[in-house]
């Protein structure tokens, strides 16, 4: 299996994730046919990153929608669901794919500001780890030492941090940020009082 390159991953983050919110909206159509939005998105990304080259892609948004559309078709075929309604819904794809996305085109400083806000809004323990790792650039061992926790706990916090940050990048911004943080803050309370030593 060819491993994902950083370059491809950054391309995904820069060119594809900004359109994920719009794609999620369009995929709502298919929930009544038994398709899970998250399943389709994950599988669409699997196909996206497997492409030999991305140099030729003129419209990443369109490309994303096309790939997601083919994932939907494959799912429907497997469940032997092909109806007139399906065809009509698929026609909407072209419209949704070429619609200009709402002005979420964050560039440079604006993006940095949004990132800073998202980090500040993280649950406290996760934020501590995230700031030391990402803003200060410290290694995992150093972070564990400074916070008096094990390296595996540092890793756990980072992974939760990533889960939360995908809401910033993948869901088109802030709206869902708070609700997901609340549920995560509850889960986090378990770790907040105790200090684990390695």
């Amino acid at each position, binding site marked *: 299996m060819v491993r994902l390159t950083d370059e491809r*991953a950054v391309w995904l983050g820069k060119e594809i994730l900004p359109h994920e919110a719009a794609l999620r909206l369009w995929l709502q159509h298919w929930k009544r046919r038994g398709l899970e939005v998250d399943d389709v998105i*994950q599988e669409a990304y699997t196909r996206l990153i497997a492409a030999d080259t991305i140099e030729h892609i003129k419209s990443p948004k369109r490309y994303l929608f096309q790939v997601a559309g083919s994932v939907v078709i494959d799912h429907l075929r497997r469940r032997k669901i092909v109806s007139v309604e399906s065809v009509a819904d698929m026609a909407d794809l072209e419209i949704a794919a070429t619609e200009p996305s709402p002005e979420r085109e964050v560039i440079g400083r604006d*993006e*940095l500001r949004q990132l800073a806000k998202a980090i500040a809004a993280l649950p406290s323990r996760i934020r501590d780890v995230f700031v030391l790792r990402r803003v200060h650039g410290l290694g995992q061992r150093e972070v564990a030492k400074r916070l008096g926790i094990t390296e595996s706990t540092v890793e756990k916090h980072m992974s939760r941090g990533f889960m939360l940050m995908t809401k910033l990048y993948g869901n088109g911004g802030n709206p869902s940020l708070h609700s997901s943080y609340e549920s995560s803050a509850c889960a986090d309370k378990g770790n907040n009082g105790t200090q684990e030593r390695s």
Partner: protein
Amino acid sequence: MERKSAHRIDQEAAQWAAKIDAGTLSKEAGAAFDAWLESDVRCPGAYARMRAVSLMTEQARALGTGFEAPLATPSSRRWFIAAGAVAAVLLATVGYHFAPSATEHYVSTIGEMKTIKLEDGSILTLNTQSEVTVHYTRTRRQLELIHGEAIFAVAKNKERPFVVTAGDTNVRAVGTSFSVSRVGAIKILVQEGTVEVGKNSTEASPALRVPHNSGAITQEGAASIRTFALSNAELYRDLAWRDGHLAFEGQTLAEAAAEFSRYSDMKIVILDKKLAAEEIAGRFRATDPIGFARNAAISLKAHAEVSGKEIRLSR
């Protein structure tokens, strides 16, 4: 086996992303990761998404080491950002501004390719064994290629010139994509847009304009710069390392071996002079010199033998 929920897969992807972010995976972990990727068609995509987020958040380095977490309780969102020598500012509803921090240092190890998103949206891709420093001010974007090779995808900003120095050579860009390498000669390849290449010396002639599908080559200490044209195919080959590959078309086996030596500890040694001069072509994984050597051996009717850190090719 019951089918996992997409949420569960996201959680596992995030765990892998955190593990990989912390450092290189051990052999066992690497095998477990590969097995997880193959366990479900949704895994590679979910992981790619988390990895993208992981890399995008690296931009946070630009917030500066004075960045502090909120001081107050969660109900209030006041917090401070300090950046280097610049005064701290309050991020509130009223307004804000902050300045980028002092010099950032980016280094890649042998065989490692690293992509970094900079504060202004520009993207820096480091090749094996490379080092770049980045110093952004309000009016200038200054970078230095200390050694190795890097690609610069520059975000357009006329008010903030983007300049890369490599030794005594400087490359100035406006909304373009180009690579600079400093492995022996100083070589610049322009993929998109136009750059201006100049030398830092008093007798130097004015900067040379180098458009896309062109390259420029110069030596440290020399005043002259030579430009040359590049087809799309050649550019694609020269920059294949971005995808973790090395592509050859007519280079000698010896040249290819030298290229591979940049990407791993394994050295390809060619014991036969005639064999070393043979021309080869093809696209290979940069961090797999053994695979390349075995492949070359088959096509050139030679024999490859791995011994310690050496791969010996003979006929």
